């Protein structure tokens, strides 16, 4: 009878084990370092000419309160990173002129994840373009605009004084001018909006 009992226990144990399909479908933990991938390996991307910051005109904030270029640019960048509510709060909370130091302080006070450069680091803007996050840059005399990334060797700039008409400036020339204006840029570090879908 011991053999029978042992068999029954073994059956129950195996029956329990057979129901344990708990292998995770997706790997846990940080994924390995990704390798650079050539863009559009099939040459089929229909939106290669679309700037990395691809925000509809309606979501590009126009300069307001007689001169709030830093904050208007920030509202645009926040919307590009999916933070619609925070952008609305920023729009309500801040206006008028702003120094870069004050801008960094407001970003810190808002609890943002953010990154910035104040030394004209071109690699920072490369990263902002590569990750489609864009940035607020101090550009033109006493002015700030939105850097929308690089396309075809040109920097795409959204000036909040005419946000419906992006400006294209050759990358080398743009960097030279940007550094001449102080080389300052800041961006939140959140998820950029999804790209335009295609199949």
């Amino acid at each position, binding site marked *: 009878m011991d053999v029978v009992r042992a068999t029954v226990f073994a059956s129950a144990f195996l029956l329990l084990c057979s*129901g344990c399909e708990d292998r995770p479908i997706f790997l846990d933990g940080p994924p390995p370092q990704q390798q650079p*991938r050539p863009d559009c390996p099939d*040459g089929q991307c229909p939106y290669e000419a679309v700037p990395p910051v691809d925000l509809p005109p309606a979501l590009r904030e126009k300069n307001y309160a007689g001169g709030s270029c830093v904050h208007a640019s920030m509202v645009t960048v926040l919307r590009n990173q999916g933070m619609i509510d925070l952008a609305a709060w920023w729009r309500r909370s801040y206006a008028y002129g702003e120094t870069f130091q004050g801008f960094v302080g407001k970003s810190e006070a808002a609890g943002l994840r953010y990154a910035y450069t104040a030394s004209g680091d071109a690699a920072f803007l490369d990263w902002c373009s590569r990750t489609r996050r864009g940035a607020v840059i101090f550009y033109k005399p006493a002015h700030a605009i939105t850097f929308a990334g690089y396309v075809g060797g040109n920097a795409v700039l959204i000036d909040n004084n005419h946000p419906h008409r992006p400006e294209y400036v050759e990358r080398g020339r743009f960097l030279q001018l940007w550094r001449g204006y102080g080389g300052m840029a800041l961006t939140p570090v959140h998820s950029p909006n999804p790209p335009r879908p295609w199949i």
Partner: protein
Amino acid sequence: MKRETLLLAVGLAAVAVCIVLAVYSVQMAEYQGDRIDMIAATTPAPNDVPARERVIQLPEDGQAYHTTVIVSANWRERRSERYLLGWFASHPGLASLKAQTHFHQYDTTDALYKTRLAHAVPDTPAVVVQQADGKVVYKASGVNLPQSADELAGNISISLGGCRPRPRPQPAPKPDVDVDVDVTPIPDIAPQPARPEFPWVLLIVAVLLGAALPLWVHFRSAFR
């Protein structure tokens, strides 16, 4: 025939059934798990910086995939859409997908949905998984949306399994595309998984063998 012999026969047959079920379960787990390895290997976490901390190491997530869930404007009143959103928090596979990709949630009133996605994804609720360049690798919407988290995760897993790097083709002129033109609706891309067949033959053979062995031993000893 002794009662013990009969119980033993039944017990061994049950063991055989359990072994077959266990083997089948392992096969199913591998079938679901192996498909997703590559996306996990090529997609970094989008935001791996703790909140309120100055960013020092910038995340290189420019090639990360995007997962977008689109629900209707009154999704809070629709149980199925609430469940759909909940799956991405509660289902291990979908939660992991959410963590490893840029995750977005829109309802049909969002300006970005109306201007950038509505033409391609007109039906809700919808789940869209895109490569970094925008190519849709999985899309299911409306009545085609899977009815369970397991099924959704399995279908996405299979779709992502097909996203293997392809060799660069011969140079070709770039398409002349008006970037302001919205795309036409994208059909749902929900592959039917090739599930492993349940091993019925193996099950029958195992049951027969498991039951026959003690009976054979019993009759052999009885006729001696």
